[in-house]
């Protein structure tokens, strides 16, 4: 027990008596009343929250659509000892022009839905097994939309967690480490790691890692990591992490673990570290700071585009908002402007899906976030909503969402067992438009292109205007790019696609994306512009996009 926990136990009764003052009844201690199953009050409250929450979502969407402006700003470009502390903020992002992607309801599973099953991708099938109060499992083939039951014998221990690896289900609990072939057979006990009490498993690419606690000679706990060799059934212990994050084995389960493709990130609101298996080294991530306020809590997930953080930011105005950040290659952070319609980070499930992450939260529809660009979308019409504790598996082309539970509300539809989500197709980018041509043209009044208010506080330099001849465009489009300096000295750049009656821009991860005009038809009254990173070479970009 920590000092804080000890203090809470000893001082909370004292505080209660103090707050009650003379009206306090004798300290008879807390009631041992048991828990009534009706949850009447809780259900009522939740139902009251549902419509309001969804209304809030709709408002956020509306505001974001009206804003229709994209800005990148570079600030606080300082470098720390181990990682850059560069913080980049995007502001006022429009709702994704990519489209919502595709949802498909899965056929019913032969097993009951449950929360927190062990789940993974094995030989072309999604495996789901065990979970809270369940010991059976099933495999789902996304290609044929069909299920089969697994002949896996039960294995139940407190604190059960697991992963799929080497075409097996690996189960871990305080009582042991064991594996089984999803096709059947008995559980086979795996070797442990000397001196390490494993508590978490992480499938990192084609490797399996275990994280566990070690007792420090000087007292307290540390974090250790080990890689598993399936052929030799041996663990190779890696470097230990000196951390103050852990005070017990149980707390290992409270840390967010994320595989970014290169590193295993151990994320905690108090600090984050990353393990590089290739180097067998831990590094400390740059502190996550937001210029608008203090970060109360945050959760992490890995994606193909790097580490994604969803944070609760208490702004200086007192307003609480939920923002997303992703890690930059230099160790800094890129904040998305979107204030996400999530309301409780303790219950949000963040599912990696390639370049995307999908967020599920009780009572709310899913939210998809395109990590490189910060585009996001609320899925009001999807088959799943309000999910908590569902299994989420990225197959490489679609996200399979199964199980979990919902709070029934008037606004959340009857839950389905599961659904798949396929992200919208990626557009062609500047690296790819072999059939695009154009030549540089300097002139025009670029400021006139800016939406009302945009020009205030910025000094716009000479723009580059490039006529675009691309089969995707049905009318005369130009690329406009110009250096911009804000009045507070930040160097910025701005780029936009324009036509006589439209303007659109998309520059995620340093790339420009070409928008087929027909997908922008409904956006003719919306201005979109994007401030670009200051180090972007506009001439080079133009040349790479359109040639001379």
């Amino acid at each position, binding site marked *: 027990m920590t000092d804080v926990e000890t203090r*809470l136990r000893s001082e909370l009764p004292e505080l209660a008596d*103090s707050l009650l003052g003379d009206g306090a009844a004798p300290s008879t201690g807390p*009631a041992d*009343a*048991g828990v009534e199953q009706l949850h009447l009050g809780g259900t009522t*409250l939740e139902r009251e929250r549902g419509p309001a929450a969804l209304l809030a979502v709709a408002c956020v969407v509306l505001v974001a659509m009206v804003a229709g402006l994209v800005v990148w700003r570079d600030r606080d470009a300082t470098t720390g000892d181990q990682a850059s502390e560069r913080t980049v903020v995007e502001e006022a992002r429009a709702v994704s022009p990519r489209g919502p992607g595709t949802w498909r309801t899965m056929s019913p599973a032969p097993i009951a839905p449950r929360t*927190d099953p062990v789940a993974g991708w094995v030989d072309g099938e999604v495996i789901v097994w065990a979970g809270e109060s369940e010991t059976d499992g099933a495999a789902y083939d996304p290609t044929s939309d069909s299920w089969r039951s697994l002949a896996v014998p039960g294995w139940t221990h407190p604190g059960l967690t697991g992963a799929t690896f080497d075409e097996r289900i690996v189960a871990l609990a305080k009582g042991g480490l064991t594996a089984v072939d999803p096709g059947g057979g008995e559980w086979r006990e795996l070797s442990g790691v000397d001196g390490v009490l494993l508590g978490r498993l992480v499938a990192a690419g084609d490797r399996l890692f275990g994280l566990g606690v070690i007792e420090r000679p000087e007292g307290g706990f540390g974090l250790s990591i080990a890689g598993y060799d399936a052929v030799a059934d041996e663990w190779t212990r890696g470097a230990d992490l000196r951390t103050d994050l852990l005070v017990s084995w149980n707390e290992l389960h409270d840390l967010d673990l994320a595989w970014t493709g290169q590193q295993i990130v151990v994320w905690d*609101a108090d600090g984050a570290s990353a393990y590089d298996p290739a180097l067998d080294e831990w590094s400390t991530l740059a502190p996550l700071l937001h210029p608008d306020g203090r970060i109360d809590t945050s959760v992490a997930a890995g994606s193909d585009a790097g580490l994604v953080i969803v944070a609760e930011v208490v702004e200086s105005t007192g307003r609480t908002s939920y923002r997303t950040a992703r890690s930059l290659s230099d160790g800094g952070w890129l904040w998305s402007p979107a204030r996400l319609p999530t309301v409780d980070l*303790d219950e949000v499930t963040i599912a990696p899906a390639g370049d995307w992450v999908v967020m599920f939260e009780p009572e709310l529809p899913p939210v998809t976030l395109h990590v490189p660009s910060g585009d996001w979308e609320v899925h009001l019409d999807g088959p799943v909503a309000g999910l908590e504790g569902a299994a989420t598996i990225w197959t490489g082309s679609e996200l399979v969402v199964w199980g979990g539970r919902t709070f029934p509300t008037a606004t959340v539809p009857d839950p389905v067992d599961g659904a798949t989500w396929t992200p919208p197709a990626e557009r062609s980018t500047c690296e790819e438009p072999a059939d695009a041509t154009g030549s540089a043209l300097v002139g025009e009044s670029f400021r006139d292109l800016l939406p009302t208010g945009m020009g205030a506080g910025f000094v716009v330099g000479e723009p580059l205007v490039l006529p675009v001849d691309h089969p995707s465009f049905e009318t005369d489009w130009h690329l406009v790019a110009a250096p911009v300096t804000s009045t507070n000295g930040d160097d910025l750049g701005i780029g936009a696609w324009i036509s006589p009656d439209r303007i659109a821009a998309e520059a995620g991860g340093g790339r420009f994306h070409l928008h087929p005009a027909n997908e922008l038809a409904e956006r003719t009254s919306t201005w979109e512009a994007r401030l670009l990173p200051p180090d972007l070479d506009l001439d080079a970009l133009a040349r790479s996009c359109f040639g001379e």
Partner: protein
Amino acid sequence: MSSPPPSASSPVTGDLHELFERERAPMLRLAVLLVGSAQVAEEIVQDAFEVVGQRWSSLERPGGYLRVCVVNGCRMALRRRDLERRHATTEVEPVVDAPDHLVELRDALDRLSERQRIVIVLRYFVDLPDDEIAEVLGCRRATVRSIAHRALGVLREELG
């Protein structure tokens, strides 16, 4: 100070009266830790007993139901207070005549979110196991652990 909701004139109301006598003080202490105000706590506990009284015949474990009612009453009160604070032009600091370490603890609890505060109080004051806290809050046990972990992080920062 409030009085018991019904009179003890029947076996049912007699049991309810007994429940009131037994649980009123612990529920008051629970509520005041959650909302920080003795007056509001009194109202919440009184309301909770009234709800329990209305549903008495259908309750298998009235004590547990009472606690759920109190916690939910506190949640609503905290949300109302949160709304009031957002619209208030100045923050009014409640006056507490208490030793410094208790004022510090109260202020630290005030930094917690609604659910964090509930979990901390139920876990370290009421001494409820996480699975029972999960039932009170209507969430998973894993969520309770997660909430507690983050709440303890905030408290370490505030009290450290």
